């Protein structure tokens, strides 16, 4: 009895102090959810920098209201993202939430947002398609693209410019790669290409030999939508087994860390195209200004903003612009603020014009990059094509696009 009473007194003291937490009515509280633990911690941290950068550029206030940010961490699981969001809303009383980082978390927060109509959710960098495309929520906004939008340009480039007719797909078995494959295949199949076989592997697989030897010998290239260590493992094993087909990369397949790693497979990557919304050393004027501002504010951050800093920045920046427009007025369940968000247009760090479609999903810029060899022998990615105004239905009629059904292992298909 004693123990319990003691715990209760302690917690009630804690509880009371929490109720008494002073909150000035003028503060605008922004909750940020990112992954600050595990394998994604360093990248998640860069997402937070994106939000901090947007607020610092606004001088830390909007129309005389101070902006306060409260950070919560998730661990890439939907449950943790939901717990983080509930804590931010119910305990800290935030007005807006920026986040989360990964796809399944985004779907979970989209569902949660329906239970909290008084709070506005702005997606961080999560890129699942159905977050906004199907069953969208009135108070969930994504100032960015989904995984399919991030592949736009690659399919037609591979078919028309590189002349590939048949491509095999190797991808991890979860929602983000499905969407990436959809983005690639929609264009590639429309251009007349075929995908005879798709190989789905569990995340973290070490042994790809069964896949390596099953890749049909008559394909022209292999589209690889794997991330991090999985990509290194697959590419190494494919190369060692004597595989010589050219590679096409997904948005997280060929990043700088892979190009900097050691191994003969690297030579095979030269000329490999990939799709991405963020190119760290892009030489557009807006990107250079953004990158300089990032380096100035965060000398100990990365050498250039990552895809996560870029996307969290765009969401926070959009929120601040809309708040300025309504002079910080969040009354009436944020109706005026949301109307301002819906109609917002601004120039993104990649030089395009960001605006939302009717599902509150961003119409964005996308890049096709290719791997090239620098004079000193190291490898880098360079931009071969910028595609502006990419919408969520990838340029098709929205109704036709929706009618193709939810993305899965077997959809789309063009064998």
């Amino acid at each position, binding site marked *: *009895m*004693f*123990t*319990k*009473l*003691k*715990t*209760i007194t302690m*917690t*009630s003291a*804690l*509880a*009371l102090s*929490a*109720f008494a937490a002073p909150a000035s009515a003028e503060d605008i509280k922004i909750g940020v959810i990112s992954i*600050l*633990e595990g394998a994604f*911690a360093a990248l998640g*941290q860069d997402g*937070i920098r994106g939000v901090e950068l947007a607020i610092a550029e606004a001088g830390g206030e909007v129309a005389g209201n101070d902006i306060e940010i409260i*950070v*919560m*961490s998730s*661990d*890439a*699981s*939907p*449950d943790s993202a*939901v*717990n983080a969001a*509930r*804590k931010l809303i*119910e*305990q800290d009383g935030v007005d807006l939430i920026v986040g989360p980082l990964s796809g*399944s978390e985004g*779907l*979970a927060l989209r*569902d949660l947002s329906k239970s909290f109509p008084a709070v506005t959710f702005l997606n961080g960098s999560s890129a699942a398609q159905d977050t906004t495309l199907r*069953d969208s929520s009135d108070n969930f906004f994504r100032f960015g693209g989904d995984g399919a939008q991030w592949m736009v340009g690659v399919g037609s480039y591979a078919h028309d410019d590189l002349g590939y007719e048949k491509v095999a797909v190797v991808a991890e*078995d*979860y*929602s983000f790669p499905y969407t990436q494959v959809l983005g690639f295949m929609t264009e590639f199949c429309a251009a007349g290409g075929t995908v005879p076989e798709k190989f789905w592997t*569990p995340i973290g697989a070490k042994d790809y030999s069964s896949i390596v030897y099953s890749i049909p010998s008559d394909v022209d290239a292999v589209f690889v939508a794997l991330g991090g260590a999985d990509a290194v493992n697959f590419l190494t094993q494919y190369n060692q087994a004597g595989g010589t087909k050219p590679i096409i990369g997904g948005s997280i397949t060929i990043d700088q860390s892979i190009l900097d790693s050691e191994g003969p497979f690297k030579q095979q990557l030269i000329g490999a195209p990939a799709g991405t919304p963020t190119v760290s050393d892009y030489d557009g004027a807006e990107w250079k200004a953004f990158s300089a501002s990032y380096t100035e504010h965060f000398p100990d951050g990365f050498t250039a903003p990552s895809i996560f800093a870029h996307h969290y920045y765009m969401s926070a920046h959009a929120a601040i612009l809309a708040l300025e427009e309504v002079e910080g007025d969040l009354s009436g369940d944020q109706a005026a603020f949301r109307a301002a968000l819906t109609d917002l247009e601004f120039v993104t760090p990649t030089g395009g014009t960001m605006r939302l479609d009717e599902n509150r999903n961003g119409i964005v810029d996308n890049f096709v990059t290719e791997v090239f060899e620098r004079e000193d022998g190291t490898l880098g990615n360079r931009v071969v094509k910028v595609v502006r105004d990419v919408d969520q239905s990838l340029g098709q009629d929205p109704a036709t696009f929706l009618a193709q059904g939810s993305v899965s292992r077997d959809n789309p298909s063009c064998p």
Partner: protein
Amino acid sequence: MKSALFILPFALVPFFANDFWLVQIFGRALILGVIALSLTFLAAYLGVVSFAQATMAGVSGYTVAYFGPNSVDVGRELPFYVVLPLAIIMATLSGVIIGLIARRSQGIYAIMITLAVGVAFFYFTRQNYTYFNGWTGFSGIRAPEIAGTNLRDPLPFYLLIISVAMLCLMLVNGFIKSPLGLTIQAVRDAPKRVLAIGIPTTPVIVSAYAIAGFIAGSGGILNVWYQERISSFSVGLGPIVDILVIAVIGGLKHPIGAFIGALAFVLLDTFAVDFIDRERFNTLIGLVLLAIIMGAPDGLHGLAKSWLARFKKRVAENQV
């Protein structure tokens, strides 16, 4: 019966707490406490540390998800009065199966076998799309409305959680005094003697796992209603270790330890990030857990008990 009274202070919470404290802190602590109670029960009375509690809870959670309302078009909907008993039965059965697999193992071997079962279940849920919907799992799971009371509202839900927690504690306390409960403890202390007097140990051990499955399953239903979703993440290594941490910091020697540990864990898990620089909050959680385990080998419950004993002794000395 007496120790069920320890839960009573939780019943006072609705009088002073807002919805966040009611559901997110105390509700979640009690739910995790119920699941950890199933581990504490096995550890205290059968002398086996099992890593499969999150799995048993996951079995009932997935049953509720598959046969209940969800938003992913997998499964078929049945009325809740069919689903709930079914979920409990499935969880109890999973306890029986795990008990059969682990019946001959003790100590580190029991840990490894139950961990293997847990991890196998995790990978199975992640890759099976027909019944578990793979990586994505189920979302949009709603607690039902029973007799006009919506169990999704904070207060009814909390009262339900607290009743389940109390019932589970009473079940454990009553059960260990029953003939079967006493036999379980006899198997813990001297399995050979139990055999020698003609009682086969396998059914006894399996029934202990079945009770553990029943308790974890009850917690699993509450947990899936609380999260409103379930996926492979909910039965992965993270939750498995969380349950063990809760049971250990609370104290493995007494059932009430599970709830003390759960409350400490939830408070830490929720607020550590507010107290310390955000990249470091996991270090704080780790250090506090380390301090508890080093300073109180029998967990928070053991620590409080020894304080109480010292306090009583001093009172007694003063009276002399």
